[in-house]
């Protein structure tokens, strides 16, 4: 018998070439107890065909906008977990919306633990009851990632738009820490909190110890890294909502603002520089293909209504798990994305910056309603990053 780090074992699986569903993200609900200005799933029950009628961005995530009745039931989630386990999935992320808001969260979590999944929980840290904390202490997840988008009440609540939410999250983070639960603090970079990102990192390190490594969330496959090295993560990217509402984009940072933010902290800047110095990643598929991302080969998403998706931002090639088996969806529907090629003369097709650009068909569709269309914000970022790479590698 060998004793092996979970991340190491997962890495071994991930490095195999075959298509296998080794990790999945279960969006248990799109409901939430916060009202964050940048949330990408708010209003997402509205289908893309209603893109012009997107919800008012100030509308709350209530049962009216996200009817509870449409979500998968406890029994349906358990059936899906059984299927996914049989297919060899090892790592699961339970997320939302806010997953802890579901009355049956512990039932679903406990069931998944008993099936032998390695579980990460994404939470805003608001709904952690004593019952949940006691249970997690006894049966701990691999990690709990808490979003903390401000280190002051004013900043945090200007983003969450819920009074008292700052005190609640701080209290709950401390309670989890007191029980020695594996925490990661993470932050989204927004105009409202760009002056506090380095301070959030500092606070997280004072509480949890200095990260051996920290990371930009967009640039890594967390499951393949030794996640225990990360006590803090930040996400520089803000995306439109799944229903096409671009309201969150008003809060995203320009390249200059992102650079200023990264320079606030030597670790963040050092890691970014390291990434730039590594040069352009190699995209193995020919440029004529629309989809060049390989994440779908090892990873999947299931939304609260039972749709199995290859990407959190897209329902293309998705199937309804209430009617179709997981096996059918993962092995028959997902590979269809290998076929589409560019049908327009989009300049993205032959752009030399494509390997470092945030552009992908799913994001482009969210941003513009067209999978092939360039996204000006991504173009701007890619050009600046390319300049920085040139500068740093001279």
């Amino acid at each position, binding site marked *: *018998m060998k004793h092996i780090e979970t991340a190491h*074992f997962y890495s071994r699986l991930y490095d195999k070439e075959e298509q296998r569903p080794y990790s999945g993200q279960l969006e248990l609900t799109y409901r939430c107890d916060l009202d964050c200005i940048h949330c990408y799933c708010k209003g997402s029950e509205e289908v893309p065909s209603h893109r012009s009628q997107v919800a008012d961005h100030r509308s709350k995530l209530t049962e009216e906008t996200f009817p509870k009745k449409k979500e998968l039931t406890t029994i349906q989630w358990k059936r899906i977990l059984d299927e996914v386990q049989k297919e*060899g999935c090892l790592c699961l992320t339970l997320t939302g919306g806010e997953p802890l808001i579901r009355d049956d969260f512990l039932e679903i979590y406990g069931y998944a633990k008993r*099936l*032998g999944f390695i579980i990460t929980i994404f939470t805003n840290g608001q709904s952690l009851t004593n019952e949940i904390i006691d249970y997690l202490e006894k049966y701990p997840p691999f990690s709990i990632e808490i979003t903390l988008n401000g280190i002051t009440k004013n900043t945090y609540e200007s983003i969450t738009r819920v009074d008292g939410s700052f005190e609640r999250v701080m209290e709950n983070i401390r309670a989890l820490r007191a029980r020695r639960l594996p925490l990661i603090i993470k932050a989204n970079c927004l105009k409202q909190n760009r002056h506090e990102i380095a301070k959030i990192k500092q606070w997280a390190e004072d509480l949890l110890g200095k990260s051996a490594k920290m990371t930009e969330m967009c640039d890594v496959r967390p499951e393949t890294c030794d996640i225990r090295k990360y006590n803090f993560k930040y996400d520089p990217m803000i995306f439109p909502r799944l229903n096409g509402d671009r309201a969150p984009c008003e809060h995203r940072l320009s390249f200059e603002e992102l650079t200023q933010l990264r320079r606030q902290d030597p670790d963040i800047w050092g890691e970014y520089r390291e990434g730039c110095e590594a040069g352009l990643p190699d995209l193995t598929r020919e440029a004529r293909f629309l989809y060049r991302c390989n994440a779908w080969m090892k990873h999947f998403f299931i939304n609260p209504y039972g749709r199995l998706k290859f990407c959190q931002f897209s329902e293309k090639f998705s199937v309804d798990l209430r009617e179709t088996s997981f096996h059918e969806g993962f092995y028959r529907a997902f590979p269809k994305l290998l076929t589409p090629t560019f049908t327009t003369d989009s300049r993205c097709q032959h752009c030399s910056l494509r390997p470092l650009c945030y552009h992908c068909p799913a994001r482009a569709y969210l941003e513009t309603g067209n999978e092939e269309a360039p996204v000006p914000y991504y173009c701007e970022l890619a050009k600046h990053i390319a300049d920085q790479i040139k500068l740093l590698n001279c």
Partner: protein
Amino acid sequence: MKDSTVFDKNPDIVSRTIEDETILLPVYRTSEEINCLYTLNESAAAVWDLIDGRRSLGEIKEAMLRQFEATPEEIDKEMGILLKDLTEIKAITPVKETKGAGRAGRATHT
């Protein structure tokens, strides 16, 4: 360890086989700071499958001798190490002693 000993599995240890590798995952908090799992090779996985709260060690050894090309001494040695490891991580506990040790159990000591 006597051949008449019967072990049972801890229900809080989940075993899974992924890509032909058998792994054991504790669902409860372990003393390990780092999140770990345990991998079993083919013969260790076979022993794990045979532990069921009813079979004695002697019977398990007998089944192992039928399944693997190994001498009783080799099986004895490998099982001894494995059972010690499994006991240490609380994956198994002795539940009772049986009267008969099974033919293989006797054979390994003659």
